[in-house]
């Protein structure tokens, strides 16, 4: 397959025409991951509904991403993978699934797929929390891990992150 830069054709396709970018109106959950200092920021918005069997599912999902080609492509692909899935199924989407869907990522960009998976699990976590629902153990652990990493980076780049928040006006 012909590559553009270090990327597969599929990555470039997603990058050229990203699916589901923008914001969901009144989202039920928002996942904010990455930080602008490192160069990747993903904000994932979800709207939760119920399927025919009465199970909670991702009715709508959109992303906003500041970042490289891989960051935009992984954001786009995760919205495709998660849309219409039950929350249970969506929580199982991991970085391997994302990388596979893109026909591969350069090793140095694998962290973008991790970021996308984290954004989704954070959005679902946010939903559970807002609805005051019981949070599955695995999701809670993931959230703890992501928060810890975030905290470490925040400590390192305090000043700059303040600016980042200011930049994101509603």
């Amino acid at each position, binding site marked *: 397959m012909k590559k553009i830069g270090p990327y597969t054709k599929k990555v*470039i396709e997603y990058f050229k025409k990203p699916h589901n970018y923008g914001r969901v109106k009144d989202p039920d959950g928002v996942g904010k991951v990455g930080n602008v200092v490192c*160069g*990747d920021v993903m904000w994932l918005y979800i709207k939760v509904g119920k399927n025919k069997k009465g199970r909670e599912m991702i009715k709508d999902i959109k992303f906003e991403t*500041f970042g490289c080609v891989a960051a935009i492509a992984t954001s786009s692909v995760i919205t495709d993978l998660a849309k219409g899935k039950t929350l249970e199924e969506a929580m199982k989407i991991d970085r391997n699934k994302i990388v596979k869907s893109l026909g591969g990522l350069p090793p140095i960009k694998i962290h973008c797929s991790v970021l996308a998976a984290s954004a989704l699990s954070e959005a679902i976590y946010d939903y559970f929390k807002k609805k005051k629902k019981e949070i599955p153990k695995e999701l809670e652990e993931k959230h703890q891990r992501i928060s810890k990493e975030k905290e470490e980076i925040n400590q390192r780049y305090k000043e700059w992150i303040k600016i980042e928040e200011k930049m994101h*006006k509603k």
Partner: protein
Amino acid sequence: MTKKIYLDYAATTPVDPRVVKVMLPYFSEKFGNTMSLHSFGQEAKQALEESREVIADLMKAKPNEIIFTSSATESNNSALKGIAFANKNKGKHIIISPIEHPCIIESSKWLENQGFEVTRLKVDQYGLVKPEDVKKAIKKETILVSIMHANNEIGTLEPIEEIGKICKELGVYFHTDASQSFGKIPIDVNKMNIDLMTVSSHKMYGPKGVAALFVREGTKIEPLIHGGGHEKGLRSSTVNISAIVGFAEAVKICQKEIHPVKSAKSGAKQFNRVEKESERLVKLRNKLIKGVLEKIEESHLNGHPQKRLPNNVNFWFSFIEGESLVIQLDLLGIAASTGSACSSEKLEPSHVLIAIGLKPQEAHGSLRLSLGRWTTEKEIDYVLKVLPKVVEKLRKISPFKK
């Protein structure tokens, strides 16, 4: 868009077809080893010495002050390490700027590990080094000051003549990396008080694999590469004659393109006016800068508005990331470059952009467009047409807005 637009001349340039033509006989016909006594060797030797004269001439140096190397990286390594090791009895202190090319930064780090002391000066928001800072930083133990002539990312031209003067007065060697400026801007190593200077072939339409180091007569320097004693013992290795001949031809072409014109004011202190190619590039450059700043909101110029290379343009755009920008442009047939972390192996933003005071997120949004011999006004117009759209598209995806 079928034709591709190359706007990355600062990374490397195509070899001018006239250069290739001159090089060809030196592969299979005039292939001799310059150290051989027979006619094959002497033919190559003669070509080597003639090439040396051509390169010396463009910088007003003597031919015996030119050492051929394999790359500007090698020249810079040789200058720093060679001066450091030959002069360590005098002192072990070196001064550099924070916006030097990685080969200077890394060489100086290595020297620190070898027990040398390195001072990294500050630059202002344009990337300019203040000559008085150099003066203040020089001490008894200082043996070398290395400040680049033109920055490869933001194009800023450093006041090397003044820095050279200070170094001369205080008896410290002065090295400048002129990889980006040689062939584009007139350089006079005597007037500018330069003791060592790095110049590169592939940045000026010559082949890759060859560069030179000017070493002023009488300079105390150690070689990096030991062997058969080529290049006055300063750079052993069988001479890469075809590349050197090509380098010289590239210089000749540039010389013709930038022949200086006598300044109107007699006795004017500055250099004679430069005409033709560099003036053409300055016009295109200014058009590009003006157009982008007008058409794209929240776009910012990096580097000095006037004191910059004729062919360099560098911006940062708020709210977006540079690798995405470069790939979007590539998909539209435009080759550009960025200082974003995401495009580097180290995943760190450009040290140059950070040194001029940009925050990492700002450096991530940087874009360098560098013009050259085959850049046309039509191409600049095309960039001005598509770049605003590309920026807008990426901003739509970004969580950050105004």
